[in-house]
């Protein structure tokens, strides 16, 4: 089997599994308990916090553990919105292709009276710094731009966007769920005030993540209860999950450069191979993209049937077609970069794992070619395109 859906989730690393197993066996005390067993668990928890903080250039007390990226996004946006409202600032800027954890929270905030501007991301899937500059207002209380897009993998100019926000005194949040552990992050150098991350995207366990909040940023609780996480996130800590996350992140960060150096040529080999398929197109900029991300549209076919047939051939991938999203519309990301519905339905996302090989890539190329050709063979759209009854879009 070739697992090429690492943007969905990743296989846990040995480091994470070992750290968690040891923690579950030995550290079963509640970190809030006063006896030694509890206090030992507390120390373990704080060591994990320091490990996570170090990877992104933060202070340990700026890290808040959450149940994952979605919770961190929700809390970041809610907190900045609350703080803004207190100062009479109710304008929020984000982008059209954020994760739904951000977009749906923004929809709720809009219903609560906030004014939301979504920046365009253009056909290359990149935000323009000057467009953020033009969109900023006196009343802007938050800018939220993802570090790297989860579908098309495009990497945003975070340092420049952060610098602009800092100069204008506006808090800057980035959903870095796809980036942490894969790209270098430095909250100081990139002027990031709030950052969301999720453990299972960098070979940690599912159900755990963290929110970085710069000192001085006041967080709003999503979950009320005990005084865990400096009173900002109630509930007994998922110590084993957090320890697994810290171990996974440390391991990923230690090999980040070499992993990227190995994956980029494989990614480009995959892109070059898939480009040989007629009437296909790469989605998003070819260079400013995550090391393992490839996303294509193939005209005349639908993504779900492509995925099912690839699964039969032992390849795990994903698609932005409506049928795979459970809604009537294809991926909002593909629509945001200007793909029309007709071709957005025929999209394929392949996200390579750290252990991907050139053989894997060649196997994927061969199989995608065969399946696309097979499906086109009985597609009425493909027939119309080929006979000239309809013009090709790609």
């Amino acid at each position, binding site marked *: 089997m070739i697992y090429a859906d690492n943007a969905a989730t990743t296989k846990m690393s040995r480091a994470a599994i070992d750290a968690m197993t040891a923690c579950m066996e030995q550290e079963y005390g509640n970190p809030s308990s006063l006896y030694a067993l509890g206090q030992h668990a507390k120390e373990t928890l704080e060591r994990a916090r320091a490990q996570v903080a170090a990877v992104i250039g933060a202070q340990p007390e700026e890290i808040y553990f959450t149940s994952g990226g979605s919770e961190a996004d929700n809390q970041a946006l809610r907190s900045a919105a609350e703080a803004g409202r207190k100062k009479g600032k109710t304008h929020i800027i984000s982008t059209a292709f954020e994760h739904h954890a951000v977009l749906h929270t923004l929809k709720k905030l809009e219903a609560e009276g906030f004014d939301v501007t979504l920046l365009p991301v253009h056909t290359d899937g990149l935000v323009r710094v000057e467009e953020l500059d033009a969109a900023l207002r006196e009343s802007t209380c938050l800018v939220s731009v993802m570090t790297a897009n989860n579908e098309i993998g495009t990497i945003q100019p975070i340092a420049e966007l952060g610098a602009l926000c800092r100069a204008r005194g506006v808090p800057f949040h980035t959903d870095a769920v796809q980036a942490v552990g894969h790209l270098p992050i430095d909250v100081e150098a990139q002027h990031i005030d709030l950052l969301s991350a999720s453990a299972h995207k960098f070979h940690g366990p599912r159900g755990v993540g963290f929110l970085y909040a710069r000192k001085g940023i006041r967080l709003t609780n999503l979950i009320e209860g005990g005084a865990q996480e400096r009173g900002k996130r109630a509930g007994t800590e998922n110590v084993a999950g957090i320890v697994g996350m810290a171990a996974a992140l440390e391991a990923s960060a230690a090999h980040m450069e070499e992993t990227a150096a190995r994956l980029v040529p494989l990614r480009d080999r995959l892109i070059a191979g898939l480009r040989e398929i007629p009437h296909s197109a790469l989605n998003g900029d070819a260079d400013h993209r995550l090391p393992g991300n490839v996303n294509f549209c193939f005209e005349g076919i639908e993504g779900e049937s492509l995925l099912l047939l690839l699964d039969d051939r032992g390849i795990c991938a994903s698609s932005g077609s409506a*049928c795979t999203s459970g809604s*009537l519309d294809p991926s909002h990301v593909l629509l945001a970069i200007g793909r029309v519905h007709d071709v957005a339905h025929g999209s394929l996302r392949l996200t390579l794992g750290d252990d991907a090989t050139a053989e894997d890539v060649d196997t994927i190329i061969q199989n995608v070619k065969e399946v696309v050709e097979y499906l086109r063979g*009985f*597609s*009425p759209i493909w027939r119309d395109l080929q006979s000239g009854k309809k013009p090709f879009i790609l």
Partner: protein
Amino acid sequence: MALYSEKVMDHFRNPRNVGVIEDADGVGEVGNAKCGDIMKMYLKIEDDVVQDVKFETFGCGSAIASSSMATELIKGKPLCEVKQLTNKAVAEALDGLPAYKMHCSVLAEEAIQSALEDYYSRHPEKKPAE
């Protein structure tokens, strides 16, 4: 539970009656690319019986399986029976479809009825009195 029944996967993986009938007596095309599903049915009719049927489909697994099953259900059948074909019959023959995929069976029914209408419009004398 898997997304689709064994029957759906079988018809998706090995679709029956795929292709085109160049000299079809009735052709029906429904759906649109914007929604991600298009089905095209070709009928060959003799003596008020479906002698042959072929389909082409752009769509998801259940759209392809629904088209395939619908062609099986009408092949060799008299037109009076074809006219009674419902999406429910297609879905049941596939051992069910997920709720949000039921529209695929609706499209299959519509494609066949549209092909039948096309046949009757070419041969009005064949159309049974309502």
